[in-house]
């Protein structure tokens, strides 16, 4: 008698627990956003704004956890099993690698969202000490003997690869510029680099907090943020004569969201970046928004600089990565610390 009573009450309890957990499960969603290094402050605000919007629209709660690091490094982490619902990286190649090596999203991921899946763009500028004591005006000044330049490690950081390619593109544009002269230019540049951090934020820390270096080659948004947070009295931005158009893309990681059942929230999260609110937040954090109307409002905060694209100069990311950044590629041949 007591045994069957026990079994029945256990069954009822289990059923109730199941139903309540199901109910809660539908309501509380957790997402992991694996991002590149300089976007901490931006996604802090975006996540709060999106959570509020999600609650207003669906009544459920969504918590977004962040992971930050060099873009290449982050991509490899996702391939190795980090359960990212969305990836918001520095360059398309890193997300392509997540498809090619890890097969976690389809080949056509980039066409799923507008603007090549980049809700905002950015570029590369220089940060120097206040007063610009070394007189750094353009890329050519970076290779002067005695100049100490800070850039992250192209093997791990996305920003570092944009830096490298922008320098290469500059050298190609010079009179008599060929691949050989560009290689010599970039080699001289890296001779002036004493230390490579693994991500863009690490390099900013090295330059600003540790006081190492005369010039920091940085993301435009990182430079503007550093100026705002760390002191217009200590730093100055120098805009070079030309730079490269950087399109940091975003994507949903299909295998993970399908397994975790978070596709709806993840896709809404990425679409939020394209909404007016998301675009305003992007501009507020010094990213150049795709939305022309929003960009027009913030155009004064972005320096005017002539931009080239990776497709026109380098024939696309796959080619550039293979030639320059893969193991044994040009960067490995160029970077010989100590020589």
């Amino acid at each position: 008698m007591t045994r069957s009573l026990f079994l029945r009450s256990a069954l009822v309890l289990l059923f109730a627990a199941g139903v309540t957990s199901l109910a809660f499960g539908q309501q509380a969603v957790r997402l992991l956003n694996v991002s590149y290094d300089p976007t901490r402050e931006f996604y802090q605000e975006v996540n709060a704004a999106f959570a509020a919007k999600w609650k207003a629209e669906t009544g459920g709660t969504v918590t977004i956890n962040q992971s930050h690091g060099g873009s290449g490094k982050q991509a490899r982490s996702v391939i190795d099993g980090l359960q990212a619902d969305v990836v918001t990286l520095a360059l398309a190649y890193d997300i392509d690698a997540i498809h090619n090596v890890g097969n976690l999203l389809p080949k056509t991921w980039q066409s799923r969202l507008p603007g090549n899946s980049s809700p905002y763009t950015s570029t590369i500028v220089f940060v120097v000490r206040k007063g610009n004591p070394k007189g750094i005006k353009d890329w050519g000044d970076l290779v002067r003997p005695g100049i100490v330049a800070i850039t992250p490690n192209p093997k791990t950081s996305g920003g570092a690869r944009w830096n490298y390619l922008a320098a290469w593109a500059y050298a190609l544009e010079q009179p008599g510029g060929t691949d050989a002269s560009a290689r010599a230019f970039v080699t001289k540049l890296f001779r002036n680099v004493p230390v490579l951090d693994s991500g863009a934020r690490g390099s900013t820390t090295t330059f600003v907090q540790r006081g190492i270096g005369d010039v920091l080659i940085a993301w435009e948004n990182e430079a503007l943020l550093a100026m705002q947070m760390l002191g217009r009295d200590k730093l100055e931005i120098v805009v070079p004569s030309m730079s490269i158009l950087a399109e940091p893309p975003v994507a949903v990681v299909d295998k993970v969201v399908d397994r975790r059942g978070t596709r709806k929230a993840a896709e809404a999260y990425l679409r939020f970046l394209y909404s007016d609110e998301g675009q305003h937040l992007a501009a507020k954090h010094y990213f150049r928004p795709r939305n022309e109307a929003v960009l027009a409002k913030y155009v004064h905060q972005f320096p005017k600089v002539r931009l080239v694209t990776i497709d026109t100069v380098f024939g696309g990311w796959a080619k550039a990565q293979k030639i320059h950044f893969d193991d044994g590629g040009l960067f490995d041949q160029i970077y010989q610390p100590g020589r």
Partner: protein
Amino acid sequence: MMTPFRRRNVLPGFLPSLGLTLVYLTLLVLIPLGALILKTTEMTWGQFWETVTTARALATYKLSLGAAFGAALTNAVFGLIVAWVLVRYSFPGKRVVDGLVDLPFAMPTAVAGIALTSIYASSGWVGQHLEPLGVKVAFTPLGILVALTFIGLPFVVRTVEPVLQDIEAELEEASASLGAGRWQTFRRVILPMILPALLTGFTLAFARAIGEYGSVVFISGNQPMRTEITTLLIMTKLEQYDYTGATAIATVMLTLSLGLLFLINLLHGWARRSAAA
């Protein structure tokens, strides 16, 4: 009567405890180290040699081993003095000092690193006074030495203290009554007795300093060829997903450390034998 076939141990359960020890050691030590070496064998000998003998790698070995040795030596000298003071004297605040000696054990190494960096940077409390004298501590090998000395301090103090405490006063009195001066008494009576413990403390401090990462990585500046330690080079290679390169360098460090520890063990045995003599 004939001796029994199997001698009974006072403590039972020899075979099970032996078995448990072997399993434990194997799982925690042998298998990971074996996997490390196995991963390295994915490279050919030529590639291995090339990876571990680049100028950059050689600079890191010199720095890591040199700084660890220097720090352990500093700790041996000053740790002995601290242990001496703590054992032989009593003064107000002795308990506090005693507790402070254990601080480097208890502190997370990253906290230690940040604390040291902020003190010794050119805008820090100590750094701002040293800078005009031309002494730069943060972001130089000197800073690495400071960090390694800091984290190695408790090892020597804690290994020497009990031995010092056990030394009977009669020995020193006998030595004095035979006409030895204070320095002679120290050198010929006390030092041989504490030398094994001192060497043990030195070894522990050295071993910890070789592998130290958290506290050094903040204060060193991490510049290849100048202030890059081997553990950082291994981390950098891992971040670049060059697993075989990382394990290759790790294997070299492992071999070097084992060799040095073996040497120190020999020294230890010799010291103990000459103390007993």
